[in-house]
């Protein structure tokens, strides 16, 4: 029997404006949203409560998004991770997917597109269980 529960999304980005606005909008759409402005904080959040989907900025000071993605997939293989970047690069995009990212999206991404990515990811994860 499936319990209807809120989907938990962790946003990791060093841009506070992006973090605040996206968190507010996702919350309004019924998600449980956690935020972190660096990878260390993100790790703490992941340890603190179960997360379904992580939306992760590729480029942050003192933290490489792709390296952190690998860490997440190692410690929490069931979490889906979507990478966001302001600097599109084929090489980085493919490296991200090979490292286990579910998607590699280019900023600016519309809220609707982001929500669809999260929903599709969540559905696929749930069906795989």
């Amino acid at each position: 029997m499936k319990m209807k529960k809120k989907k938990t999304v962790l946003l990791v980005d060093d841009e506070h404006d992006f973090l605040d606005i996206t968190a507010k909008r996702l919350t309004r759409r019924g998600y449980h949203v956690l935020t972190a402005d660096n990878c260390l904080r993100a790790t703490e959040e992941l340890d603190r409560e179960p997360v379904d989907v992580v939306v992760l900025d590729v480029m942050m000071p003192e933290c490489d998004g792709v390296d952190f993605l690998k860490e997440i997939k190692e410690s929490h293989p069931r979490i889906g991770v979507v990478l966001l970047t302001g600097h599109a690069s084929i090489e980085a995009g493919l490296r991200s997917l090979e490292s286990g990212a579910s998607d590699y999206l280019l900023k600016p991404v519309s809220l609707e597109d982001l929500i669809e990515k999260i929903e599709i990811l969540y559905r696929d994860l749930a069906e795989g269980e």
Partner: protein
Amino acid sequence: MKEGVACYRKTGDGRGMKQNGALSKLKSLIGISDARIDPAAAEEAFRSHYRSFRSLLTANNAALELMAGIEEVLRQGRPFGMSFVRGHSTALSVNVFKMVHSLQELSGGRYASLNDAFSRITAEIDEIIAREPPFPKGDFVLFLDRIGRDDTDLVGDKMSNLGEVSNRVGLNVPPGFVITAAATHRFMRASGLKDEINRLIKTLDIEDLEELYTTSAQIQKLISSAPVPPEIAGAIKEGYRELVKQTGPGVLVSMRSSAVGEDSQSVSFAGQYRTQLNVSEEFILDTYKEIVASKYQSQAIVYRHQRGFRHQDVIMSVGCLAMVDAVCSGVMFSRSPRQWQSPWMEINAAPGLGGPVVAGSARTDFYRVSRDDPNQVLLSETGDREPVLDLEQLRKLARAALRLEDHFGAPQDIEWSIDREGELVILQSRPLAPTAGGSAEPAPAACGETALLSGGLPVQGGAACGDVFVVRTNVDLLEFPKGAVLVVEQPLPEWATLMNRAAAVVSETGHAATHLAIVAREFGVPAVFGMAGAARTLGNGDRVTLDADRGCLYPGRNERVLKRLSQPVNLMANSPVYRLLEEVAERIIPLNLTDPGSPFFAPAHCRTLHDITRFCHEKAVTEMFLFGEKTGFDPKSAKQLSGDMPLRWWVIDLEDGLRPGFDPREKFVFIEDIVSEPMLAIWEGMTAKRWAGPPAVSLKGLGSILFRSTMDPRIDPAVRASMGAKNYFLISKNFCNLSMRLGYHFTLAEAYTGPMLTENYVSFQFRGGAADRSRRFIRVNLLKDILERYGFRVEVILDALTARIERKPKGYLLERLKVLGYLLIHTRQLDMVMGEQDMAWHYRRMIEKDLASIIKESARDN
């Protein structure tokens, strides 16, 4: 998780999936066809297949949409920058990678060599995008008297032309030297600013004027504050010392940008960079840096973006020329810029130095002089003051213009001065920028009584309507709304920043020789200068219509004037960025894999990303199609559709396309058992109108069919491939893939109609027919017209048609599927009558009428 079900877990949407229970089980299932099947394991394996399939379709959808986006910008030539090229290439690579990966999951790794094709193609694309222009190599300083065309890579067009004017044409130019692009390259590299500037430029949103100004100022400040390396400072000092030997001590110089990389004939770069007059020795280094930095003036950033230049495509060299003690100066065109065949040339002149003439801030004399010997003065507009030029001077100018035109082989745009000794000195000669859209010479102004303002000088013809926005300062400029009519007092070069936003330009003063006029002509923005009182009398927000051919401004929207609306100009064609995208697109868009039956339909023959998507899609559908058959897993095998219908159909359920409670072991299925929404929509379209039977074929039409049948064995209905033999629906609740072979026609329709827009699409392929080629073409074009009317993006190659819609809500797509269903039934055999014009019209009207009623009726139902 249910007991007994093979453990399967997917990470993400499929990536990172290792060999798992279900997959290995599936492989063994496929190998042993008569073994006893564990239904639960097969069911689970099938479900995981279906998930991979769905991911593949979604990625396919995104990839095809991105490709359409690339084709569109190449076709329209609307400005795009490297961020578009990088963004689209990256997003495409990511989605095609997902498709390759999903197909590997579906097929148990059968197509491993696809990875090689994919890596090869993406590496090629990456290489093209990362390619840098070659570094300029050579001396840091070159003297003008030793410069010619061969030095363009070091000193830019402007200075190499000036060298030619002196050394080859034999006209006077000021003595001087050029700080070369090699020096600037060394300076920029030593400054270590490249990465920082790249970062600022890459993240810049060019549409945000405030951000544009901030970033522009920031970059210019960075460059101006960086030290000039001693070897370059030394070379410049040495150059100045040489100049002093030629001209005398304390000589002041004018410093002019001469950018390297602006090599295109139709690209003017007029007034984009800084020029500084009267520079003394102590300020040469600082001024040099300022001019190098002026590459990032806001109007130059916008201009490069609009014309398809990357910032690294342009590198500054700076000319240092002895100041001319000018009595008068000006600009001349060896032909009229608005009329290339004109038998006259145009000369603008003002007392003193030339800067104010091109900047549009000086009041100038205007002369028209015949090109024939002796050069006659045809027109002289000098206002209420003494003419700046006498007849002898005008003739001297005209003869010089003809010599320059002769040497450079094209009409010229020439800056000149006449010094105290009466000598003519040429400061610049460049090809005259052609007028976009080639408008004719202005008709005499007859604006009529309704005009708000009249009597302006048409600078670039055409017509436009928009709301007035008066710009007097840079602060006003920041507020400028897109699509407004730019109204200014003077046509200053910095207003060129707005050329990608303004619908039209109106200036109280100025003339056709100003830099702003050149840029307006280049961009095809209708412009009228010298329209007295415009900035004073027009208020922000007033809706006006500009007739730029006649120099008249009307209140409100004037449809009569707007009938002559000018076509948008393709500013990007042949620019570095455009060519780069074309080169990238060659690795993305052409489809070489068209026939799944061909031996060349294989990974090794994939030459583009489109080929890979086509291959993945085809093989994925086949994998899903054959799953039941291969595994002997009955519930997923084909079931025959029962009922009263003219054709035989088979249905394969992929997941949840049949009603709950349906016994999956059944060999037959009724339409009432189907819950696949896209299939039901197609079915509704198919059955909404009774098929009138084959159209009456004339003897001629029939002859063409019989002829083709005897010539082409592939279209004999007796020869059938295994998959093409029957008409299939492959379905789930939100998905339907229909493959249909009716007589001589082969049709594929596919759709996903779920709640998520990114997953949704309808695609349609149609080819074949029994009639001769021209009849089939007419039919396929009839289909194209109809499908485009319903919002499909349609491509026709020979007699094959593909049509697609993405990212639309379910309801919208289901309506389109009804259209397809109708067309599938009612356009078969229509090719036979397409030779007769009357019949073609008759059927077109019938189809349009039927479709209108089907769509309307079902819209009422919803």
